[in-house]
C-alpha cells in the first residue's frame, strides 16, 4: 500500500515527469566552467530557461586577509585573484596605495610597468582564446596560444623569477631593475607575435563553424552592459568605446598611441574580434614602450614602513578582463582598515543569465568562455 501512496505522490509531482524541465548541474567539476564555477541550468530539452550561478568554491577572503597584513604584505595576495593576469592585479593595487600615499612611481618604473602589464594582457587573452576555442571544440589553438604565452612567461621569469603569480611591482615602483636584454626579448616576442596572431585568425576567424557557433550567441547590447556593470572587452564589443587606459590614463599610457577596438553586435564573435585586436594593440604599445625606456630610479620616495595618512582612495585600471578597481580605507596604521576590490570577472559573470536564456547547452559553454572569468577573481 505504501507503493500506491508513493505512486500518487509521483504522479502528482509533475516536475518528475515529462519533457518539461530538467535541472542540469554544470560544475563545480566540469571541464568547461573554467575552475570551480557551478551553474545550475534549467533546461527545456536542450534549451536553457534559466541559470543560477553558485560561486564561492575558491573563496579565500582576500579582502579580509588584507585587513591584517601590512600594505606590502597584501600585494602578493592580490596576485592570486586573477592568477592568469597577476601583473595587472599588482599594478592596480600598487597604484592605489601610491595614490593613497600621494607618491608617484618614477618614469622608468612606469614604462616598465606598462610593458609588463601589456605583455600580461596578451598572455591573459591567449589563455582566454585557447580555452574558449577548446570549449567550442577547436583543439589546436590552445596549444598555439600556450606556446606564445610561454614566451611571455619566460620574460616574466627572467624579470622577477616567477612565472604566474609574479608580484612584479612594489608600492612606489619596481623592486627589480630590468635584466640585460629585456628590451630585446620583448621586441623579439612582439615582432614574432604578429605572425602568430595570424595563425589563430587563419584557424578561427573565417571558419564557418566558428562563426556559426559565436555569431549572435550571447548578445549583450550596450545598455545591458552598462546596466549590469559589465566592462572590458564585453562592453567594448557592444560598441561602447570605454577603456580606462584612454579615459583615465594611469601608469604611462598617455604617452602611447593605440586604438580601442570596438564591436557592433555585442555577440560572442565580436568579443572574440575585440580581444584579438586588443592583443595587436598591446603588442604595438609594447613596441612603442621599448623604443624609449627612460633612465633613472625605479623606486619612488616610499619608506620602509608604509603608513599612509588616514583617508580613502579608489583607483581602477583596465585589467585584461575589464575594470579592476581597488577601494582602500586607511586609518593611518601600517595595515589597511578595509580593502574592497571590484573584480571584473565577478561583475561580468552577472551577465551570464541574461546572455544564455533561450540558448542551447552548447552555447552556455561558449558564453562562459567568452565572459573570460577566472574563478580566483570571482570568489576572491
Amino acid at each position, binding site marked *: 500500500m505504501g*507503493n500506491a501512496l*508513493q*505512486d500518487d505522490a*509521483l*504522479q502528482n509531482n509533475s516536475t*518528475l*515527469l*515529462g*519533457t518539461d524541465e530538467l535541472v542540469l548541474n554544470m560544475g563545480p567539476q566540469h571541464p568547461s566552467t573554467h575552475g570551480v564555477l557551478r551553474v545550475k541550468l534549467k533546461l527545456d530539452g536542450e534549451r536553457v530557461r534559466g541559470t543560477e550561478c553558485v560561486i564561492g568554491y575558491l573563496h579565500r577572503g582576500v579582502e579580509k586577509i588584507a585587513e591584517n597584513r601590512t600594505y606590502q604584505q597584501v600585494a602578493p595576495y592580490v596576485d592570486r585573484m586573477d592568477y592568469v593576469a597577476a601583473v595587472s592585479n599588482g599594478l592596480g593595487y600598487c597604484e592605489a596605495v601610491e595614490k593613497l600615499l600621494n607618491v608617484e612611481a618614477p618614469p622608468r618604473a612606469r614604462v616598465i610597468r606598462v610593458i609588463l602589464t601589456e605583455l600580461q594582457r596578451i598572455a591573459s587573452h591567449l589563455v582566454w582564446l585557447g580555452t574558449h576555442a577548446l570549449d567550442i571544440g577547436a583543439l589546436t589553438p590552445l596549444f598555439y596560444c600556450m606556446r606564445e604565452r610561454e614566451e611571455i612567461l619566460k620574460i616574466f621569469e627572467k624579470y622577477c623569477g616567477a612565472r604566474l603569480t609574479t608580484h612584479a611591482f612594489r608600492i612606489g615602483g619596481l623592486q627589480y631593475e630590468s635584466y640585460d636584454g629585456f628590451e630585446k626579448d620583448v621586441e623579439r616576442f612582439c615582432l614574432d607575435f604578429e605572425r602568430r596572431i595570424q595563425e589563430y585568425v587563419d584557424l578561427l576567424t573565417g571558419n564557418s563553424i566558428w562563426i556559426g557557433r559565436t555569431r549572435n550567441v550571447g548578445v549583450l547590447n550596450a545598455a545591458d552592459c552598462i546596466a549590469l556593470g559589465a566592462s572590458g572587452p564585453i562592453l567594448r564589443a557592444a560598441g561602447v568605446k570605454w577603456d580606462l587606459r584612454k579615459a583615465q590614463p594611469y601608469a604611462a599610457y598617455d604617452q602611447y598611441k593605440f586604438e580601442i577596438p570596438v564591436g557592433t553586435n555585442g555577440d560572442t564573435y565580436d568579443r572574440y574580434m575585440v580581444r584579438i585586436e586588443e592583443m595587436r594593440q598591446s603588442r604595438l604599445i609594447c613596441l612603442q614602450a621599448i623604443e624609449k625606456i627612460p633612465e633613472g630610479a625605479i623606486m619612488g620616495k616610499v619608506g620602509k614602513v608604509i603608513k599612509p595618512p588616514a583617508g580613502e582612495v579608489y583607483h581602477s585600471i583596465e585589467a585584461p578582463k575589464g575594470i579592476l578597481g581597488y577601494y582602500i580605507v586607511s586609518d593611518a596604521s601600517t595595515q589597511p582598515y578595509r580593502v574592497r576590490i571590484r573584480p571584473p570577472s565577478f561583475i561580468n559573470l552577472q551577465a551570464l543569465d541574461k546572455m544564455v536564456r533561450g540558448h542551447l547547452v552548447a552555447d552556455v559553454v561558449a558564453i562562459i568562455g567568452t565572459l573570460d572569468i577566472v574563478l580566483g577573481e570571482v570568489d576572491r
Partner: protein
Amino acid sequence: MLDSVLFYFFAGVAVISAALMVTRRNAIHSAVFLITTLLATAGIFLQLRAEFLFIAQIIIYVGGIMVLFIFVIMLVRLDVALHHIRFRMKNLVVTLVIAVLGAEAGAIIYYARKLPGQGLFIEKMAPAQNLAPNSEKLAQSLFSNYLLPFEIASVLLLVAMVGAVVMAKNKKGTEDS
C-alpha cells in the same frame, strides 16, 4: 547438424527473450529483450536463405524501429510507471483463452504433420538455389508483380511520417504554459 544447432539456438533465444520481454517491469528491459528476439528472428531468416530480409530486419527493425522505441521510452521517462502493477488480473481469462487457442493450433500443426498426403504440410523444401541470388530475386518480384503494393506501402510510410510529425509536434500554444 549445423542447421539444427543453429535453429535451436536462434529459436531458443527468440522464445526465451520474447517471454522475458512480456514479463519485465522495466520498459527499457522489455525493449532490449525485444531486440534480442528480433535479432534471433533475423538469424532464422538467414537460415531460411532470406539474406535480404535478414539485413532488412536488422536495419529497419533493430536500427530504426527499436531505436525509436527506446528514444520514446527515454523521453517519457517511464520509471514512474515501474511501480504500477504489471498485469491486469481480469485479463487472466483472456490469457487462458489465448493459451487454449495456442494449444489447439499447436495440436493442429503437430497432427497435420502426421497425416500423409493432406497437403497442409510439405515435408520437403524447394532447393535453396531457387532463391539465389536473394536480393535480385526479391527485387524482381517486388518491382514487377508487386509494384502496386510497393507504391502503396511507400505512400503508407509517407502518411505515417506526416502523421507522426503532426502527432508529436509541440503545439505553439502549449509551449509557454
